[in-house]
């Protein structure tokens, strides 16, 4: 018993020790921010912490609604990116001819500065109609008693924003699927030949599993990029989500709100990233995600 609790204590100590630099960085950041703001002493150049927080508080309801909206899109984008990335990755890795034929396109699509494409996604889905899977009452309805359920409603759907997020997040998964599948050691290839495995069996029993660690470790980039995609789409092409709120703040020259929104985006993105990575770590074989 006591050995166990001692071990727990030791583990907790180590965890704290490991989180220490992060904590110090955080505190340093806050001190630095407030220090600079005080030295400049002008909330129109650098908003101080108090001003930023009060600007945020004034529009807390909007922020919560918009953040929920954004990260519902991110979830859809992420799932789409992983599903399509793996599926297309397997196909492209399997079919040599197809791989060669699509090579230039893939490289081009990878290299193109993606934000330029965001408005096209939005317009296409406006014209073609987007597709709502289901809706639910967002957290804001519970946080703010004044808010009606209708205002807090969040739609999970396939629309311009979420597909664009998926497009941006797609490449890491896609590419690591191809790489992983092609890295199957020759001896397994030989084993398959000896056993008379069909092509599909090779994929099912060997190649896909060989690619799994690669896929799992690419998930980190995909989470990051799905967030980037969704926020870029929001702030340069649509008027939804937390991304658009920065543009709004900028247009009205409200620096306190702008600071607040940027800060919220950074914090929520970081938290979402850690959660997603933790989840993936939890569901994949140990050691896949480092």
């Amino acid at each position: 018993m006591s050995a166990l609790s001692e071990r727990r204590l030791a583990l907790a100590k180590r965890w704290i020790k490991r989180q220490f630099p992060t904590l110090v960085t955080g505190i340093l950041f806050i001190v630095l921010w407030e220090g600079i703001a005080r030295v400049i002493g002008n909330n129109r150049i650098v908003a101080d912490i108090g001003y930023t927080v009060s600007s945020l508080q004034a529009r807390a309801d909007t922020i919560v609604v918009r953040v929920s909206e954004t990260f519902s899109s991110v979830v859809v984008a992420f799932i789409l990116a992983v599903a399509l990335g793996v599926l297309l990755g397997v196909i492209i890795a399997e079919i040599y001819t197809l791989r060669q034929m699509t090579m230039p396109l893939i490289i081009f699509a990878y290299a193109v500065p993606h934000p330029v494409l965001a408005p096209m996604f939005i317009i296409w889905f406006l014209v073609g109609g987007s597709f709502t899977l289901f809706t639910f009452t967002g957290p804001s309805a519970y946080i703010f008693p004044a808010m009606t359920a209708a205002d807090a409603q969040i739609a999970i759907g396939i629309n311009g924003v979420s597909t664009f997020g998926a497009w941006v997040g797609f490449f890491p998964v896609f590419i690591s699927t191809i790489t992983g599948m092609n890295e199957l050691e020759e001896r397994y290839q030989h084993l398959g030949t000896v056993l008379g495995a069909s092509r599909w069996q090779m994929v099912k029993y060997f190649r896909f599993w060989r690619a799994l660690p690669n896929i799992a470790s690419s998930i980190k980039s995909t989470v990051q990029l799905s967030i980037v995609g969704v926020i870029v789409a929001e702030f340069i092409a649509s008027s939804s989500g937390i991304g658009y709120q920065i543009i709004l703040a900028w247009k009205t020259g409200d620096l306190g709100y702008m600071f607040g929104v940027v800060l919220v985006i950074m914090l929520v993105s970081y938290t979402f990233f850690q959660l997603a990575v933790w989840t993936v770590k939890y569901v994949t074989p140990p050691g896949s995600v480092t």
Partner: protein
Amino acid sequence: MNNKIEQQSRTDDTESVDYTISFDSVDKVYGADTVAEESVVALEDIDLDVERGEFVSVVGPSGCGKTTLLHMAAGILDATDGSVQINGVDVQSPQHERKEVGLVFQHPVALEWRTVRKNIMLPVQILTENGAIDKDMSYYEDRADELLSLVGLEGFGDSYPNELSGGMQQRVTISQSLIYNPSVLLMDEPFGSLDAMTKDELNLELLRIWRETEKTILFITHDLDEAVFLSDRVVVLSPRPGEVADVIDIDLDRPRDEDTRGTTRFVELSAELHKHFKSLQ
């Protein structure tokens, strides 16, 4: 406290008897400085002295701490307790002379962007820049050529490591540790990855180099026959935590050659060592 005084007087002895490598009640605990439950006692109370010009092998089951022992002698690892000295100087002190020690690793260490010759020359460049050695570059360049032919890599001086087999790369690593002519050679299963024939050949070569250059060699191997064939003494380590379980004197005549392995004495010694080894498990 008493212990320390004892150690001190022992150290003084060491210097007078002219030991080249000496371990003095050395303990090594991995992870001793972090959280307690993860620490591993790798070596315990090691006392081992190697005389100048002696060839000593260390054998022991995998994971018993052989590499750890060697790395402490090389100054790569710090002993948790006790002291490790080379030529009477603590290996962790600034007076320790790097050029006196050569280390051959268990796996080939060759920089893939340097040619074989340049890889061999690397220690010379570093030691010269640091003022540890001061002979002419051309001297070492000639030496590199000699070494290349010595280890059977003539004609490969301008190749890159990627173009060589694992065994050939290992020979590059060996040449690298010989180029600056250290008086102490620490070798960690240097021939482990070679085929039997090359291994026998390099064993003979190593004995020849040892005899001609009067080096002190601490040699690690898991091949008991190799240990008998090469050494003056064989140290047997026990499984974790590694302790000196046995020291066997090898009284085979020198110089040794291919025929040595056929002598009755060799067979006896080898059998004895095998027996000792077995009794450990």
